[in-house]
């Protein structure tokens, strides 16, 4: 009896296997099932993104209210969907940097005017922080819109590959959005973030002194002496959230001394590879700056015009760490980067020589 029963099961199994094989190989049913699975996963993640956006908006509104802005929600709404930047024509490379610089500055001045109009006369660091808070909420809104766009596009055309790719990327996207949302705490309370290591190192080199003057808008110049070498230190003006114009500032300093500079050292946070350790300090050649182009090229041009060696010292970190409040590990890395800069000055610049140190990055929480 048992053998007969087993034979029946075998027959059923064979039919089942045959049917399953047919469905798997000759229909789109598996892909449609996958499409449903992946899209429901993406939807769950979108709820998370929406929560993050609501939270970010709430923080931004409460920060602006605390500064006395009337109707902060309206101010936020007026910002998030506007102030986009259309990239210049790249097909024609002649004067592209000038065009980029012009467009970036025009946008920045529009944002500044918009914030100034609602904020009235306040300290510049507060104005910078409000601008950054609005930008961060704008980025979170954009991420949300893009994720929704690709999901709806994939579902509309049954493009299961698109939805699958989106689903696979969602954990990374949520992580990045969380970092942006968390960075609001740092920007509103004025605490340094991972990206502030460049300005922090610059401040260490300047021995925490007051700046000599503002060399270009939102960028300060310090002058100190290190073991008989004259050191010009450039960093964005703090302690508000600001990156300044380090390229233009460097250009001006070098031109002011007639190109009589022995070395330029740039210090910045750099995105680490997954296999690398956070807080690793490395040095190399070139301009350490994550810029679209105008600031970086200004550094390269002035260095090559006067044949000044251009060094880069970087502190490696993840994108999430770059946007989160500075951790002890990264602070210790900043101290190591500072020692590295001092080593380069002592070993590669003659006594009596001149060197420019540029601390690149967001100077939030660093005067």
């Amino acid at each position, binding site marked *: 009896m048992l053998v007969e029963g087993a034979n029946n099961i075998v027959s059923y199994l064979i039919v089942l296997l045959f049917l399953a094989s047919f469905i798997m190989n000759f229909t789109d049913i598996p892909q449609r099932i996958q499409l449903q699975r992946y899209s429901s996963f993406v939807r769950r993640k979108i709820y998370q993104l929406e929560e993050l956006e609501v939270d970010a908006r709430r923080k931004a509104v409460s920060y602006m209210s605390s500064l006395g802005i009337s109707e902060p929600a309206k101010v936020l709404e007026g910002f998030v969907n506007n102030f986009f930047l259309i990239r210049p024509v790249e097909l024609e490379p002649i004067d592209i940097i000038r065009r980029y610089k012009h467009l970036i500055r025009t946008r920045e001045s529009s944002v500044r005017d918009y914030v100034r109009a609602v904020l009235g006369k306040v300290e510049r660091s507060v104005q910078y922080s409000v601008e950054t808070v609005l930008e961060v909420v704008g980025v979170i809104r954009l991420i949300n819109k893009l994720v929704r766009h690709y999901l709806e596009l994939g579902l509309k055309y049954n493009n299961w590959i698109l939805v699958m790719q989106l689903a696979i990327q969602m954990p990374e996207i949520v992580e990045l959005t969380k970092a942006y949302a968390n960075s609001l705490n740092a920007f509103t*309370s004025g*605490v*340094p973030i991972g990206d502030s290591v460049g300005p922090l190192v610059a401040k260490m080199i300047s021995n925490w002194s007051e700046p000599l003057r503002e060399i270009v808008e939102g960028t300060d110049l310090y002058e100190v002496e290190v073991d008989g070498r004259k050191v010009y230190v450039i960093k964005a003006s703090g302690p508000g959230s600001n990156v300044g114009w380090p390229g233009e500032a460097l250009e001006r300093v070098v031109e002011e001394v007639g190109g009589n500079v022995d070395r330029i050292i740039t210090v910045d946070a750099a995105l680490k590879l997954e296999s690398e350790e956070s807080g690793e300090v490395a040095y190399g050649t070139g301009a350490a700056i994550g810029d679209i182009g105008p600031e970086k090229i200004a550094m390269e041009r002035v260095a090559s015009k006067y044949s000044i060696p251009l060094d880069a010292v970087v502190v490696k970190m993840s994108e999430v760490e770059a946007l989160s409040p*500075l951790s002890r590990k990264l602070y210790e890395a900043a101290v190591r980067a500072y020692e590295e800069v001092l080593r380069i000055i002592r070993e590669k610049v003659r006594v009596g020589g001149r060197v420019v140190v540029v601390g690149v990055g967001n100077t939030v929480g660093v*005067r």
Partner: protein
Amino acid sequence: MDPLLTALLILSVLLVLTTLIPWIMASARKPKPTREELVSVLRCVKCGYEEVRRYDKGDYVGKPVGSCPRDGGQVVVKAIYVETFPQG
């Protein structure tokens, strides 16, 4: 027992295990709970004396916060960072 049924049973157990193992491993890998606190490092610009204290609202790097207990030099906030402590 019929070999086919045995094979089916083994297959089912394997399927359940492959579903459960990553979940068990992920829960075993959960990091220990920690507590985070913002701290400010103070430094005398003259003698290099350093002190770490809890972050005060309004602190920023470079902020003058008094004079040095050792030599009376100016003390500034040298750095602000997040310190992580194990919880419990």
